[in-house]
C-alpha cells in the first residue's frame, strides 16, 4: 500500500513507457491501471474489481448502439453507396474555387447522417474524392487534410459512435438529446470548413482549382441521389423524435434499412456484407477493449481522489465559465494527441464534466463539446485514426506527416467552432430542448 500520489505517479509512468514502446493503447491503459491499483489497494482488492469492471462495461445498454452504427457505415461503404452521393453533390459544388474539396466536406457531413463511423466516412468519401482531386492537380496536403478532418464530421452529426461512448462515461445524459445537439454544430463546422477551403482556393487557385460546372437541369437530376440519406435520417432521428424507438433500437433499425437501401439499389452482395461485418468486428472490438482499459485506469483515478484534485485545482483560479472551458479544451487538445478518442472520453469526462456542470453548462452541451474535442484527436498525430485511414488510401509514398500537415489548419477551424459554442451554448441546446423537451 502506497500513498495516492505515489500510486498515480507509478500508474502514469507505466502508461507513458508502454505507450512509447508501442504497446496497444487498451493494454497500456489496462496495465497502468492494474499496476496503480495493485500498489495502492493490494492484490485482493484488485482481483475483486478487475474482472467486474471488464464485465460491467461490456454489458452496458447504451453501448449496444455502437457496433450497429459502425456496421451501418461499413455496409454503405462496402456497397459503394458513397460514390453516388459524391457525384450528386459534386454537381452542386464542383464549379466553386476548391469545389472538389468543398464537395468532399459536404458529402462527409451528409454521410454523417447515414453513418456513426468517422473512419467509414473518411474512407468512403476519400476513395472517391481523392482520385478526382489528384486528377485535378489539387495540393496533396490540402486534399488529404480536408478528407481526414471532414471524415470526423460523422462523429458530430448523428448518429455518432463517439456520442454513444460519451453516454457510457456518464449516467444521466440522454444520448438522443446529445445526438440532436450535434446537428447545428455539425452544420456550422461544415460551413466553416467550406469557407476556409474557399478562401484558400481564392488565394491559391492553382492549388485548389475549380471543377466542371453543371447545368440547373443536371443539378436537379442529381437530387434523387440524396434519397438514401433522407430515408436513413427519417428512420433514425424521425424514429427517435416520434418516440417509436430509443437511440439504441434506432441503431438496429438503421442496419436493416441500410440493407434494404442496398438491395433496392441492386448492389447487395453477401461478400460485401461479410466484409462490412468483419470491419465492424475490428473497429467495435477495439473500442470495447479500450473502454475496459480506460475504465480500469479511471477506477484508480476515482479511488485515489485524483478527479477531485484536478477539479479543485482548476476551480481555485475562479475563472469565468468560458475561461475554464477554454483551459479544459486546451488540456483535451493536448491529451487528444497521445490518446485514442475512446480513452480520451472515458478518462476525461468523469473529471471535466462536473466542472462544466458547476460552471452552468449542461451534460448535453458538454457531450457535443467532447465530441468536437475528439474530432481534433482523430486528426492529430501520432494516434489520429483518421490520418491513418486517409494515408491508407493516399498515393504510395504519402507519409503520415503530409496528411497531418494538411489537417493542421482545420484544427484552428474546429477551435473557432468551439469558441462560438462556448459563448453561445444555445446553439447546441436549443434544438434538443425544442424537439425533446
Amino acid at each position, binding site marked *: 500500500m502506497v500513498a495516492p500520489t505515489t500510486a498515480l505517479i507509478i500508474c502514469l509512468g507505466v502508461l507513458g513507457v508502454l505507450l512509447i514502446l508501442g*504497446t496497444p493503447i*487498451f*493494454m497500456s491503459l489496462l496495465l497502468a491501471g492494474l499496476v496503480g491499483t495493485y500498489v495502492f489497494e493490494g492484490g485482493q482488492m484488485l482481483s475483486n474489481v478487475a474482472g467486474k469492471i*471488464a464485465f460491467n462495461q*461490456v454489458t452496458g445498454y447504451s453501448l449496444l448502439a455502437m457496433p450497429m452504427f459502425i456496421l451501418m457505415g461499413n455496409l454503405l461503404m462496402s456497397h459503394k453507396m458513397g460514390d453516388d452521393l459524391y457525384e450528386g453533390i459534386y454537381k452542386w459544388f464542383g464549379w466553386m474555387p476548391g469545389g472538389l474539396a468543398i464537395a468532399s466536406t459536404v458529402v462527409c457531413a451528409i454521410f454523417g447522417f447515414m453513418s456513426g463511423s468517422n473512419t467509414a466516412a473518411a474512407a468512403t468519401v476519400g476513395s472517391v474524392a481523392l482520385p478526382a482531386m489528384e486528377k485535378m492537380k489539387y495540393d496533396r496536403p490540402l486534399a488529404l487534410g480536408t478528407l481526414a478532418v471532414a471524415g470526423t464530421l460523422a462523429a458530430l452529426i448523428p448518429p455518432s459512435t463517439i456520442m454513444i461512448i460519451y453516454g457510457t462515461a456518464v449516467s444521466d445524459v440522454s444520448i438522443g438529446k446529445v445526438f440532436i445537439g450535434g446537428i447545428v454544430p455539425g452544420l456550422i463546422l461544415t460551413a466553416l470548413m467550406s469557407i476556409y477551403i474557399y478562401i484558400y482556393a481564392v488565394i491559391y487557385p492553382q492549388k485548389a482549382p475549380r471543377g466542371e460546372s453543371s447545368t440547373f437541369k443536371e443539378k436537379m437530376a442529381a437530387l434523387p441521389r440524396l434519397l438514401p440519406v433522407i430515408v436513413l435520417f427519417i428512420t433514425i432521428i424521425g424514429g427517435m423524435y416520434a418516440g417509436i424507438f430509443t437511440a439504441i433500437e434506432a441503431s438496429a433499425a438503421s442496419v436493416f434499412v441500410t440493407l434494404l437501401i442496398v438491395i433496392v439499389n441492386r448492389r447487395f452482395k453477401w461478400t460485401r456484407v461479410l466484409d462490412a461485418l468483419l470491419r465492424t*468486428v475490428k473497429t*467495435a472490438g477495439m473500442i470495447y477493449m479500450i473502454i475496459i482499459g480506460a475504465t480500469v485506469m479511471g477506477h484508480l483515478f476515482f479511488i485515489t481522489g485524483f478527479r477531485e484534485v484536478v477539479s479543485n485545482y482548476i476551480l481555485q483560479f475562479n475563472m469565468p465559465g468560458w475561461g475554464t472551458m477554454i483551459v479544459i479544451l486546451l488540456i483535451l487538445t493536448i491529451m487528444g494527441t497521445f490518446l485514442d478518442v475512446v480513452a480520451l472520453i472515458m478518462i476525461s469526462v468523469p473529471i471535466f464534466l462536473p466542472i462544466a456542470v458547476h460552471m452552468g453548462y449542461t451534460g448535453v452541451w458538454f457531450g457535443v463539446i467532447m465530441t468536437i474535442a475528439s474530432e481534433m484527436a482523430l486528426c492529430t498525430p501520432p*494516434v489520429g485514426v483518421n490520418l491513418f485511414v486517409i494515408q491508407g488510401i493516399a498515393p504510395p509514398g504519402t507519409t503520415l506527416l503530409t496528411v497531418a500537415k494538411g489537417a493542421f489548419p482545420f484544427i484552428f477551424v474546429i477551435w473557432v467552432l468551439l469558441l462560438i459554442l462556448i459563448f453561445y451554448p444555445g446553439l447546441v441546446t436549443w434544438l434538443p430542448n425544442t424537439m425533446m423537451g
Partner: protein
Amino acid sequence: MKVLISLINKMSDYLGRISAGLILIISILLMFEVIMRYVIGKPLDWILDVTLLTQAAFAFLAASYVHKVGGHVSMNILTEYVNNKSRRWLSITSNILTTLGCVWMAFLSWNLFTKSYKIKEASYGVDIPLYPWKILVSVCFVLMSLQCLARLFEDIKASPDDFAEMKGGH
C-alpha cells in the same frame, strides 16, 4: 511451432466470424423487441438480458481476432524514427508486455467467475445464469495471450526487412 501458430491464427479468424454473427443477432434481437412491443403491447422480459449478454460475448470473443488483424490501436512514435531492426525489437517487446498483461488479467478475472458460480448468480430479468458469461472475461484474455504469443513467434522468426512497413498507429 508453425502448425501451432497457424492453428491460433485460424482460431482467431473463426472467432472473428462468430463475433460478426453475434452483431447480426444483436440487431435482430433489438428489432424483434421493437416489433413485439407494438404487436403485443409490452416488451419481452428476456430480450434485454439476452441482448446485453450477447454483447458481452461479442466484445470478449472479438478481442483476439482484432489483435490478429492489427486492429488494436497503438501510439507508434518510436517506430517512425528507428531502423527496421529496432522496429522488430519494439514489436517483440510490445507483444511480450501485452501477453503478460493478458495473462495477469485472465488470472484476476477468474475470481469473477468463481464468485458468480458459487452463488449460482443469475440475471435480474429472467434468471439467466451469469457464470457461463462471466468466464468469458478470462477466456478472452487467454485467447488474447495465445494470439500475442503467435504474433511474438512470428516476429522472432521474421527478418528485420519485414518490419519496413510497420509505421503509424495500428
